[in-house]
């Protein structure tokens, strides 16, 4: 509601002038940035300029505090509430499930499974569906996908004889919708998509893609790792069967992630990991699994990390949606514009609606050289294949540089980065 309203305002030419003033003020964004202690460091005398949020985000103090407080006060194992401490820990842990449910607009709390990250979440789905897949069945995989959304399907295909086909890209780096329609005519069983490309920052028209897949009765999984910190997610609106994301890319701790699954299909998954917590009864002859969500959360979960994730969600919820979205939108546009102005730079799939990241190379220069020389100036970016080798092959490159932003990034970071990049160019010439 708030979003639709804002978009309407932005279309209004008169309002644009005031918005510009507003954004300029926002781009400095001091109150949010000061909550991130890691960002105040210097390296080699240069202030840290962190443009690698797509790899992992920094954590606000309140997330660190929440985790410390858990260990100081409530530390106990969950779901074994024989004593008050455990009861407290369980309450706190389960409250985060409700928070996540609200955060992504899930219908039931049982649809939210705590995992160790996106990779594990996708593995859980691929493994969990294996018994239902027959030889020759088709799995479509987004060509923009991270390896985490490719390899589990390959394993599934190898075990079942299913066939994987990539959904091709247009030369602009977007998914080729015509080719996608043609592939859907072959009635795939599973369609694995990314919400936002980790390597290029390209935003997929996810609702359209899922609707088309559902029209041919395909099971849909969306890798939301690069989307969740940057935009509002509503899994019911996306209407996917599964949605996976990580805590550490959304200002939460490492070691925790979420698998959302539509209740009926989630309940049908064969557990990837078995053991404690997910069990109702065990004899040496027969084991009966617990119900959701515990059925898919074997072993002691990352309790403190879940608490930290809850605090990260509270942190994100405290930032008005308008700031969250337009601060980054404005900054990314600024970054793209600054880069485009450099002679001899190659940008990959840089569109105005991209989210969080921009990928580039300097003509005839190795991305690693650029990365090392930027690092000397305390600019943290990622250089490499970004765990998306098939995408690099499609682009016909070995790798590239990726600068990515977060809620704490400010205009000064981008300016620092551009100065440093110009220094690199001077050095390389």
């Amino acid at each position, binding site marked *: 509601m708030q979003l639709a309203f804002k978009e309407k305002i932005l279309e209004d030419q008169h309002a644009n002038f005031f918005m510009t003033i507003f954004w300029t003020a926002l781009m400095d964004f001091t109150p949010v940035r000061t909550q991130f202690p890691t960002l105040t460091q210097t390296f*080699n005398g240069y202030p840290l300029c962190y443009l690698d949020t797509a790899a992992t985000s920094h954590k606000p103090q309140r997330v660190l505090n929440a985790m410390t407080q858990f260990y100081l006060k409530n530390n106990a194992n969950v779901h074994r509430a024989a004593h008050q401490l455990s009861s407290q820990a369980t309450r706190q842990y389960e409250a985060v499930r409700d928070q996540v449910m609200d955060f992504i607009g899930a219908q039931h709390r049982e649809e939210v499974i705590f995992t160790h990250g996106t990779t594990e979440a996708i593995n859980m789905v691929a493994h969990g569906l294996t018994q239902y897949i027959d030889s020759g069945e088709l799995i479509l995989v987004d060509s923009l996908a991270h390896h985490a959304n490719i390899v589990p399907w390959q394993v599934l295909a190898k075990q079942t004889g299913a066939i994987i086909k990539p959904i091709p890209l247009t030369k602009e780096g977007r998914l080729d919708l015509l080719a996608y329609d043609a592939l859907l005519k072959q009635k795939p069983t599973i369609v694995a998509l990314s919400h936002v490309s980790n390597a290029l920052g390209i935003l997929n028209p996810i609702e359209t893609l899922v609707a088309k897949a559902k029209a041919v009765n395909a099971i849909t999984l969306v890798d939301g790792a690069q989307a969740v910190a940057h935009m509002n997610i509503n899994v019911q609106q996306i209407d996917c069967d599964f949605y996976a994301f990580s805590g550490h890319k959304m200002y939460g701790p490492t070691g925790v992630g979420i698998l959302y699954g539509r209740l009926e299909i989630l309940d049908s998954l064969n557990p990837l990991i078995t053991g404690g917590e997910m069990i109702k009864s065990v004899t040496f002859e027969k084991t009966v699994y617990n119900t959701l969500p515990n059925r898919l959360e074997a072993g002691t979960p990352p309790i403190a990390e879940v608490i930290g994730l809850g605090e990260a969600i509270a942190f994100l919820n405290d930032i008005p949606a308008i700031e969250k979205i337009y601060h980054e939108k404005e900054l990314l546009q600024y970054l793209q514009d600054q880069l485009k102005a450099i002679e001899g730079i190659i940008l990959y799939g840089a569109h105005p609606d991209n989210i969080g990241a921009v990928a580039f190379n300097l003509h005839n*220069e*190795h991305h*690693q*050289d650029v990365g*090392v*020389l930027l690092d*000397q100036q305390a600019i943290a970016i990622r*250089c*490499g294949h970004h765990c998306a080798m098939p995408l690099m092959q499609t682009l016909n490159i*070995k*790798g590239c540089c990726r600068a990515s932003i977060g809620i704490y990034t400010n205009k000064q970071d981008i300016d620092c980065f551009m100065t440093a990049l110009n*220094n690199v160019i001077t*050095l*390389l010439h």
Partner: protein
Amino acid sequence: MDQDLFLQIPLDSKQIIELFTQATNWQERYRQLMLLGKQLPRLPQEQRTPQAQVQGCESDAWLYHCQYNRQHYYLGDSDARIVKGLIVLLLAAFNGKNTDEINAFDHDDYFEHLGLSGQLSPSRTNGLHALIKVIKYYANAQIKS
């Protein structure tokens, strides 16, 4: 392979350290490093083989070895400029040395002197560690020449 290629880096580690001591900031150090890299003869395409490739580098790097009597000689190349420079530093330190000298060489100290110790961390993807490992492996392998 043309064996003369193995002798094309005339510098030794002392001369390299001297060059780097003159550099007063990171820009000069890395400029020097890349200039050194340019001295390295480019390996022809047919020698950029998977067999010669050093695993563990983000860029592609290839390393060849030969032995005259007890002395080891290396030749390498990379598609990244800084790694090429790092290869020259390694060749200057190791070329013409025998196995004992290669094993005894304190590369941590060497890179510390060059002001490049930041490049040495095993977590770096420049492959310096991998290159040193391969150099030492060759030096210790029983190779008949």
